[in-house]
């Protein structure tokens, strides 16, 4: 859509201001993680000492390990469950399909505090599972699977299903046809969903806050517990790591979806 080629100043000014608004806090956080000021809010001179201190911080390492384990398990289970579900939703006609689709989306449509609180009550008052790895992983799979289902479903709508028909006409059963033909065709979608779910799970604070127990701190929960001490260089460094952990899979995911 181009009638004129040069943008009016108004649009340029607003656009630049919006970019500054979106990026300034993030950029300043990264910058200050390298500042020697111990309150973490002023620039003095360049240092890597906060990163080195982070290496000795047992609580941070513990929380980081826990977050990585939870995100990895969530990625594997959600992506597998999501692929199976997307295949069923795409291929089959059945009664109650709309209700099922809506119910899958429910945990991310209703406010996170509602999802988190309902899971907390369910875990502690009904099925009595320990608050820690089991409760956090179940919660993360519950709010990550919708993402997997709909990203993979989107891919299914774009691939050429006659390949599967051809494989089956040539004698492959449905499982062989899936592993040899459909699976590879879906792979970019499956990989993209995994790359989206990893930061989605790794970053989650609100729902995790409800279902976490004593001694099962994830990295966002740790950051939250440190906030009452105000700005500290430790949070700036963790924040920078978070941004890196998020951006890398995101860029990979967008590269994969383009294929």
């Amino acid at each position, binding site marked *: 859509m181009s009638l004129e080629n040069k943008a009016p100043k108004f649009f340029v000014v*607003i656009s630049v201001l919006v970019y500054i608004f979106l990026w300034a806090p993030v950029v300043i956080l990264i910058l200050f993680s390298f500042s020697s000021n111990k309150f973490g809010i002023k620039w003095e001179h360049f240092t890597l000492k906060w990163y080195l201190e982070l290496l000795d911080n047992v609580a941070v390492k513990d929380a980081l390990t826990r977050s990585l384990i939870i995100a990895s398990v969530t990625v594997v289970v959600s992506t597998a469950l999501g692929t199976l579900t997307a295949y069923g939703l795409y291929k089959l006609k059945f009664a109650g399909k709309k209700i099922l689709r809506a119910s899958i989306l*429910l945990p991310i449509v209703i406010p996170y505090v509602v999802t988190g*609180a309902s899971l907390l009550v369910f875990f502690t008052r009904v099925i009595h599972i320990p608050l820690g790895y089991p409760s956090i992983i179940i919660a993360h799979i519950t709010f990550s699977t919708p993402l997997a289902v709909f990203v993979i479903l989107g891919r299914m709508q774009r691939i050429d299903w006659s390949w599967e028909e051809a494989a089956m006409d040539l004698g492959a059963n449905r499982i062989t046809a899936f592993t040899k033909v459909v699976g590879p065709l879906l792979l970019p979608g499956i990989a993209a969903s995994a790359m989206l779910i990893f930061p989605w799970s790794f970053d989650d604070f609100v729902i995790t806050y409800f279902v976490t127990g004593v001694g099962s701190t994830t990295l966002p929960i740790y950051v939250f517990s440190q906030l009452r001490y105000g700005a500290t260089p430790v949070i700036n460094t963790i924040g920078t790591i978070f941004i890196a952990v998020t951006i890398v899979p995101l860029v990979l995911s967008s590269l994969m979806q383009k294929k």
Partner: protein
Amino acid sequence: MRTSKIKGRRTKNIFPRQLPLYIGPISVWVILFVLAPLGIILYFSFLKAGPLGEVIQNFTLENYRAIVAGKYGIIFLRTFLYAFLANFFCLIIGYPLAYWIAKYGGRWKTFLMSLVIIPSWTCYLIRLYAFKTLTGRTGLINSFLLNLNLISSPLKILYTPYAVMIGLVYSWLPFMILPLYASLEGLDPTLLEAAADLGATPLERFFKVTLPLTKGGMIAGTILVFIPSLGEWLVPHLLGGAKVMMVGSLVAHKFIQLGNIPAGASLALFLAAIVILILYLFIKLGGEEALERML
């Protein structure tokens, strides 16, 4: 013709036998960890909390009566107002940006859009914290303005309604820009050329062609901004403090600080019902198609 026949036959054949295999696991998961927990809090919302946080097994409508009677009226009103204003500001600052990228982005379009999306995918808590350090009493904005002698004492931004509203806009703006951009990209340029040929001025073209044709994008953006803003907890909690509570913070407060499950449950379900109702209305208004185009 032939392939569609085969496909039809296969679809029918696998319907009864393979349904449990593909749909079984997710159905079990959804029933156990989505519907059952909501059912449980629905049950608890009709009970009463004892003085020590225990739940008394007596059926009562008291929790809902308190909500309907307006016990939390001011918090509900404030939530709606903030969500509405956040959505409004996202729309009026997001539209020009989306328009600029779609129209003048050229080969930089993808890059410019990723610059919009990337911040929204980095940890929400960290971003709000960064935002908080910027706007605090000794934060960068205040020290900058003080150094320039533009102000004589630090501005109080944090823990005011303004901070909450700016925080909401900051959190959700990318989700407004995304569908707006998608609908502007999908706009047929020949329509604008036709309007120009027929003598429409640039302003007329914008208000009579572009704006009406991107209504779907605006509705989709509203779904992605207004709906989550209504249930927001972290933004008012971190930036508003105890004074500027929204319904989400009230729910979290009842559950976590007070341990009052019945009161928390009734508020949570009331909030979820409002959110689902509004979502349904927006989808009916035509947001669904625009949301799908965005994917």
